[in-house]
C-alpha cells in the first residue's frame, strides 16, 4: 500500500509557508500556556491539603505521590515522607531506591499514592 492511500489530504493540502509558520507559533504558544497552567504554584488551599497529607505520611506511613519541577522538567516520586528539613525547607522522602530530598518550593502536586 502506498503512502498516498493513507495521506491523500496531507498530500493535497495547500498551505502557505507563512501559514505553517503561524500555526507552528500558535502551537508553541498553546503548549507553553498549557505548561504554565499545569505548573502553576499551588494555592493556599492546596498547600493546606499538602500539609495534611505530609503529616499523615510522617505519622501513619501514608505513601505519597509527589510531583515536582526540576530544571523546568516534571519529576514524580512515590514514597513515604519521613523528615522535614528547615532552612531551606526540604522534604525527605523514602522511595524504593533510597531517600530523596525535595525542596518544598519545587512541589507542584502532592497526593496519596494509589
Amino acid at each position, binding site marked *: 500500500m502506498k503512502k*498516498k492511500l493513507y495521506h491523500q489530504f496531507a498530500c493535497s493540502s495547500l498551505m502557505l509557508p507563512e501559514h505553517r509558520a503561524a500555526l507552528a507559533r500558535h502551537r508553541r504558544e498553546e503548549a507553553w500556556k498549557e505548561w504554565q497552567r499545569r505548573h502553576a504554584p499551588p494555592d493556599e488551599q492546596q498547600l493546606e491539603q499538602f500539609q495534611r497529607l505530609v503529616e499523615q505520611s510522617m505519622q501513619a506511613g501514608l505513601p505519597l505521590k509527589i510531583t515536582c519541577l526540576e530544571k523546568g522538567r516534571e519529576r514524580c516520586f512515590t514514597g513515604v515522607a519521613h523528615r522535614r528539613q528547615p532552612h531551606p525547607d526540604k522534604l525527605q522522602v523514602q522511595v524504593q531506591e533510597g531517600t530523596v530530598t525535595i525542596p518544598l518550593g519545587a512541589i507542584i502536586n502532592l497526593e496519596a499514592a494509589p
Partner: protein
Amino acid sequence: MKQRKAILLADAESFYASVEAAQNPSLRGKPVAVCGDPALRHGIVLAASREAKAYGVKAGQPAWECRRLCPEIIFIRPHMEKYLEYSLEMTRIFEQFTDRVVPYSIDEQFLDLSGCERLWGDPRETARRIIRQVWEKLGIRCRIGLGENPLQAKMACDRFAKKRADAFFELDSASYAAHVWPLPIGDLFGIGTRMELHLRRMAVRTIGHLARLPREIPARLWGVNGLLLWLNAHGIDYSSLEAGAAPPPKGVGHCATLPRDYAAPEEIETVLLELTEAVCFRARALGKMGTTVHVYCRGADFNHPSGFSRQKKLPEPAASGPEVYPTVRQLFRRHWDGRPVRAVGVSLSGLVNRRFYQLSLFNRREITDALSDAMDEIRERFGPTALFRAASLTSGGQLFTRARLIGGHER
C-alpha cells in the same frame, strides 16, 4: 461496539472576500472581488463574494472579465496577513471543541470530534454551534460537512453543505452511495479535468459508474491513484488526522510570475538565483538537503506556448545557494530558447537529512554550512532583505518585491 468517528470539514465561504466584509461592514451585501494588481500581472480574482458570484464572477477570472459580467463590482486588493490572522482565529475557535484540528488550507480545516459526544453532545448540534460561533465572533459564514472519515466530510461540505441554507450536511457509509453516486464524475474529490476526460471516454459519467467498476480496472490503469479514486467513489478513506501522521515533504519549491516579460538572460538568471536562495533557505529550515534540482520557465506568449521544465541530479546533496545555483544556471542555459519569459520556478526534491553526508577530501562543506546557518539566522531575525546578493539590486531583481508578498499576493 466500535465507536463511530465524527470528522468535520469546516470551510469559510469566499474567505478573502468575507474577511474584507467583516473588516468593512459597508461591503456587506455588495458584489466584492479580491483581486491582485493588474499592473503587476496579478489581476485575477482570488475570491468573490456571494453577490458577485450571482453575476457569474468566479475565482481565477481576470479582472476585466469580472467588470464585464458585473459593472458595479468592487475590487479590493488582497491583505494576506489579515487572512492568515482570521484563519488562525478560526483554528482557535475550533480548538475550543477539540484538540484535533488539522488545517487543510487557509480556509478549510478538519476537526475530529470522535469521542467528544459526552462533552458536547451530538456532533450535528456541535457543528451548528461552531457555525454560529464563527459567525458571531468573526462575521464569517462557515459551512460544515460531517462524515465518518475526512473524505466523507469533504464531499459532504463541497457537494452539499455549500448549497444548503443551514450550511451543514452529513454523509455516512450508509447514505454515501445514495447521495454521492448520482453526482457527475468530476465532482469526486481527487478528479481533475484530465482524469475526468479519461473517465468520460470510458463512459464513466457519474461517481456511481466508477464505483460499479471492478476495482482492478482503475488500479491497473492508474496504479495507486486509480485505486484511491475507486475507494473515494465508495466513501472509503484511510487518511489519518493524527498530529504528525502526515508524510514529510518530498521537496520545496518557489516560483515567481515576473512583473514584465524578461528577455535578457542576466535578468532571468538574477531571479533564478534569488529563487534558489529562497528554496535552499526553506530546505535548511527543514533540516534537509536536496539531491535533485528542478527548473521551470514559462514563455511570455500565450498564443505560442514556450518554456521548459527540466531537472538534474546534483553531484552531491546540497542546500546552499552556491552549491545549487550552478546546476540551476546550467539547466536554464541549456534549455532556454531565448524567447521572453513570464514565470520561472526552482525546486529541490529528493530531500535527505542535512546532518549526515559523505565527507569530501577537497570540499570543506562545514564552512559553507556555517556560512548558510549564519545567513539564515540574520534573515530570520531581520527579514529576507537584511542580507542579499548584489544582483538583487539590478533591474531584474525581484527580492524586494517578493519580500512584500505572501503566497504571491500583497501582505
